[in-house]
């Protein structure tokens, strides 16, 4: 039922299949599997050949039977031949399906690997524009759904289409007139389907719209259930949900009502090859131009012409679904890569950072308009400014989450675009609020900071970050598994382990992006002292909400509307910048009783 509905969407969605980009990527994903697909086609063709031979044998058998041959041995012989041919047909068919499946599972694996690899080369900022759930959805779940279609398309299309055509040619060979007459049902079916399609533009958008509305209401109702209950609105909101759910079902039912007749009429017409075959055959028999035994043979053969084509038809909607999925994957694959060379062209002299007239556009809106900054090697630099000023964007550009659109960022006199990402990563440690811990031991998680670090070095880093004591109090000490996203540890503990990891890396440039606003305020003090040790002696770039934190910085950059509005030490800014002064005052008044 659903499949016929969807076949109406084919024209629109087939375009997305044929969309050059999706096709390009699909072709790319088949890398190394093309031979297997070819094998699958060849096997399917062999299967078709066997099936054809079955009918040839059967035709001979029928002719003999009608002709009066009464030798049972002959029939047993023919029967055995037919039996063997059937077995061969399914052997080939099975092998074809098997190769096609193994190729498709390989293709899916390729797609997964390539997408994951892509996440490593595209700008990290672009990666983080989507949630991990969205990536999981496409990389794990959605891609899996291409399997039934892609794996079956090769053998089934080959078998059904080529089989039907071969059968048709065979029939034409026996009697071309009857062969053509049997096709009379096809225009009848097409006419019915065309009439049916007339109402599609009217109903199809409605179903899309209602389904979207239903999903939106469901997301709101379930996602907002806490708020709904807290405000005692569960009855009202439930009512809305019920209405949307009913409408979501009704629109499909209404559509089906409208198209019911033509759809089912069309489906009944298509396979009715006998409609033209029987009368025309009878007429030709009567006028002597067709051997009646051949008519009987033709009748049997006609079951193998149009019916398989109808089977192919049912795959169409699935193909369009595959098109959608591939085009979603293409969206990931089409992201531009971060423009960094494989090997560095030049190595930095020191650990100072220079920004020259940096422009950056995010989602079609320029957010940084010509930023120039000079951060001297080994100094503490703070970025401050109202929310939306662009200070975080600057830190993220320096951290190579994005490439600049215009201007340049230099580290030790070298443009970052001339450094390999690996080289760059050796120089820069980026510490944000969320630092992921892998599902490994505490020891291994910290060791990720520097490959090949000894246990002693790991423990030394942990001690320096004030982690050692709480790690030792864990049941298995350093061998404790952190669990996905560090589940067994508190937010503060996780943060400290990730700081220890960064410490082990010992990069000369440290970027603290809001790392000082804590998910776990109770352990703020210990985290702060860990950060102090991590950053000692480094070139430090820090974004802090609490202005007092950065009051001693060597240089404070005040960012406003995507420009550097003022820079200097705290004292300098308090006298030169009214904006900074007002920010400082509101900070002080919000915090006055704090200490």
């Amino acid at each position, binding site marked *: *039922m*659903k499949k016929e509905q969807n076949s109406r969407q084919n024209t629109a969605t087939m375009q997305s299949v044929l969309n050059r980009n999706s096709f390009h990527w699909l072709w790319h994903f088949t890398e190394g599997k093309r031979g297997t697909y070819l094998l699958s086609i060849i096997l399917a063709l062999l299967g078709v050949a066997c099936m054809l031979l079955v009918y040839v044998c*059967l035709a001979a*058998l029928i002719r003999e*039977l009608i002709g009066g041959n009464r030798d049972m041995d002959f*029939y047993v012989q023919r029967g055995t031949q*037919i*039996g063997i041919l059937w077995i061969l047909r399914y052997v080939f*068919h*099975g092998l074809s399906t*098997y190769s096609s*499946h193994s190729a498709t*599972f390989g293709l899916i*694996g390729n797609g997964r690997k390539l997408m*994951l690899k892509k996440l490593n080369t595209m700008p990290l900022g672009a990666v983080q524009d989507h949630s991990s759930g969205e990536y*999981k959805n496409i990389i794990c779940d959605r891609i899996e759904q291409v*399997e039934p279609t892609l794996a079956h398309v090769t053998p089934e299309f080959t078998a059904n289409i080529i089989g039907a055509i071969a059968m048709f040619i065979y029939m034409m060979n026996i009697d071309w007139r009857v062969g053509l007459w049997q096709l009379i049902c096809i225009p009848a079916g097409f006419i019915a389907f065309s009439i049916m399609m007339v109402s599609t533009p009217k109903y199809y958008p409605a179903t899309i719209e209602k389904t979207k509305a239903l999903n939106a209401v*469901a997301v709101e109702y*379930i996602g907002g259930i806490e*708020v709904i*209950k*807290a405000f005692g*609105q569960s009855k009202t909101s*439930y009512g809305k949900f*019920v209405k949307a759910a009913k409408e979501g*079902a009704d629109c*499909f*039912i209404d559509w*089906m*009502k409208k198209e019911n007749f033509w759809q089912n*009429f069309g*489906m*009944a017409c298509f396979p*009715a090859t*006998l*409609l033209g075959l029987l*009368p025309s055959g009878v007429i030709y028999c*009567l006028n002597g131009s067709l051997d009646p035994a051949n*008519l009987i043979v033709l*009748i049997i053969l006609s*079951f193998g012409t149009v019916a398989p084509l109808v089977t192919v038809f049912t795959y169409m909607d699935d193909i369009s679904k595959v098109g959608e999925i591939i085009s979603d994957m293409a969206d990931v694959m089409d992201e531009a890569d971060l423009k960094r060379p494989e090997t560095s062209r030049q190595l930095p002299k020191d650990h100072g950072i220079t920004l020259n007239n940096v422009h950056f556009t995010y989602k079609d809106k320029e957010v940084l308009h010509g930023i120039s900054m000079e951060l001297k090697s080994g100094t*503490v630099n703070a970025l401050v400014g109202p929310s939306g000023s662009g200070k975080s964007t600057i830190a993220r550009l320096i951290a190579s989450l994005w490439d600049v659109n215009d201007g340049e960022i230099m580290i030790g006199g070298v443009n970052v675009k001339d450094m390999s990402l690996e080289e760059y*990563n050796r120089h820069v440690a980026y510490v944000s609020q969320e*630092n992921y811990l*892998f599902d490994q031991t505490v020891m*291994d998680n910290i060791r*990720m900071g520097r*490959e090949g670090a000894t246990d002693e070095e790991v423990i030394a880093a942990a001690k320096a970050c004030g982690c050692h004591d709480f790690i030792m109090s864990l049941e298995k000490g350093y061998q404790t598994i952190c669990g*996905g996203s560090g589940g067994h540890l508190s*937010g503060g503990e996780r943060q400290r382990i990730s700081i220890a990891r960064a410490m082990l*890396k010992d990069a000369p440039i440290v970027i*603290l992006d809001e790392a000082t606003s804590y998910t776990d305020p*109770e352990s703020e003090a210990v985290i702060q002292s860990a950060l102090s040790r991590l950053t000692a002696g480094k070139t430090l770039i820090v974004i802090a909400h*609490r202005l*007092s934190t950065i009051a*001693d910085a*060597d240089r404070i950059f005040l960012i406003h509307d995507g420009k550097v509005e003022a820079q200097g030490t705290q004292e300098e800014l308090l006298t030169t910048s009214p904006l900074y002064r007002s920010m400082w005052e*509101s900070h002080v*008044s919000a915090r006055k009783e*704090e200490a």
Partner: protein
Amino acid sequence: MYRMLKKFFRFCGETERKQFSLSISLSVFNALFVAMRIPAVYVVIKAILEGNLSEREAYEAIGIIIASILLQTAITMKTTMLQTRAGYNTASLKRMEIAEHLRYVPMGYFNNEGLGKVTSIATNTMESFSGMATRCVMMISKGIITTAVVVCSMFFFDVRIASVALITMVIYLLGTELMIRMESSDADGFTKAQDVMVARILEYVRGIAEIRNFNLFGKSITNVDESIDRFARYSTGMETTYEIMMFFLNVLNKLSGVVMTLLSILFYLKGSMSLVYAVMMIICSFMIFESLDMVGAFNGLTRAIENCIDKANEALSAPTMKIEGEELSPGEMTLAMKEVEFSYDEKKIIDRVSFEIAEKTQTAFVGPSGSGKTTLTQLLARFWDVDAGSVTLGGVDVRNYSYDSLMKNFAFVFQNVYLFNDTVENNIRFGKPNASREEVMEAAKKACCHDFIMELPDGYDTVIGEGGATLSGGERQRISIARAIMKDAPVIILDEATANVDPENEQKLMEAVDALTKNKTIIMIAHRLKTVRNADQILVVDKGRIAERGTHDELLRKDGIYKSFVTERSKAATWKLGRG
């Protein structure tokens, strides 16, 4: 397969089950109408073999085929409608059932991940249920019934040939069942390989920033490729089992056809069957198992369908609590806990806690993360039911209130704010559905929202969220406070904001909180010394118990947990990054 069918029909509602059954019963007639092509062929072949072929047979054949097409159309129109109605209505009823069920699930039960899962069940899973599952179940049921009908009708023509067909059908159906069994024995390794792969991919995606930061790409620790390949191998393995079974089933059908052909010829040669019948039987032997092939083809989807149904049932199995009670409005607002115990996941979170919160006082919960302070505030507002002891509001157990009448007394301000994908005005009005625009604006002004709302493209009519305006964390917080002000509940439960707030937002946020909490009972999870210091009562929570209680001055004198909390906090607040 039969287990799946049973599950499917149990899953459907009463009306829908009847519609499905009727549709399946009617498909018997459809099978007969499809089979009408056999008489059409019979008429022609009989005339040919008897040597009296005339134009009459041509007309008869056309007549029968046209009748067959029209009758098929008529009956499938009926069955399609029944099926469509039943399929979509089942999905829509299940959605409603899930939504209804959520009203009774304790508010604390769902974390974001859990809610995401339920959402996906109510949308995606139910969508594929109404399409794929329904179609597949119908195809399987119809396939079985159609074949059964055809085989039975064959008994009228020739018992011997019909018996062969019957035996074939029985073996075939047993075979499909065996196929499912064999598949599920493979399924363990498959599922495990899948879980490992999903876990590794998720870890890779979530940890991508670290992988790049520490140059870990391709290192064994983050190596997902191996798990992807392994899963592909297991998938292929599963498929192999399936293909082998399908091979045997297909061959069974075809060989049975050959046997039927040879038997017919034998009977004809022996004289116990006419030539016309023999030829007809040969033709039939090629068509009879078409419907069975359908059963086999759809059989592969059985697991997916069961999966759909299991998921929906899982969403419906979340624990519930009784929310019907009396419509009460308490005379006074004293909140009290008496000897409250509460466990979650078999772990005791709250251990015999008692305290009292007087009307219009300010109570601060203080303690390390994981101590249970959040759970305590949740228990007060009945996000959960206590395991032992009682929570009372105005001297009445909270469980005796109807949920809505209890909730009238509370307003919440949490750190993660949920705003609806609706206009700013409607979001604020959610606190009081019949409020006028003026009231909404007044609340917005009190919560320091008015200015930034007026700067939005459509002011109060701006839609928030997807396709609308994006607001900063602080702005969202303040809108949620305006919403709470609108509600004007006597008890405010507040989780003090700490993260992600800029200085200028911070001050406005504090003003907004002050406006909300004026003359109310305030219960807060406090992080700020200033607010703690002003509290009438401080409850220091540690390991699920109240470790210390009193006012700021009293507790400072005790030199306990609270004192060290205060010292740490002041140190943190004045911390400076920089030289020396």
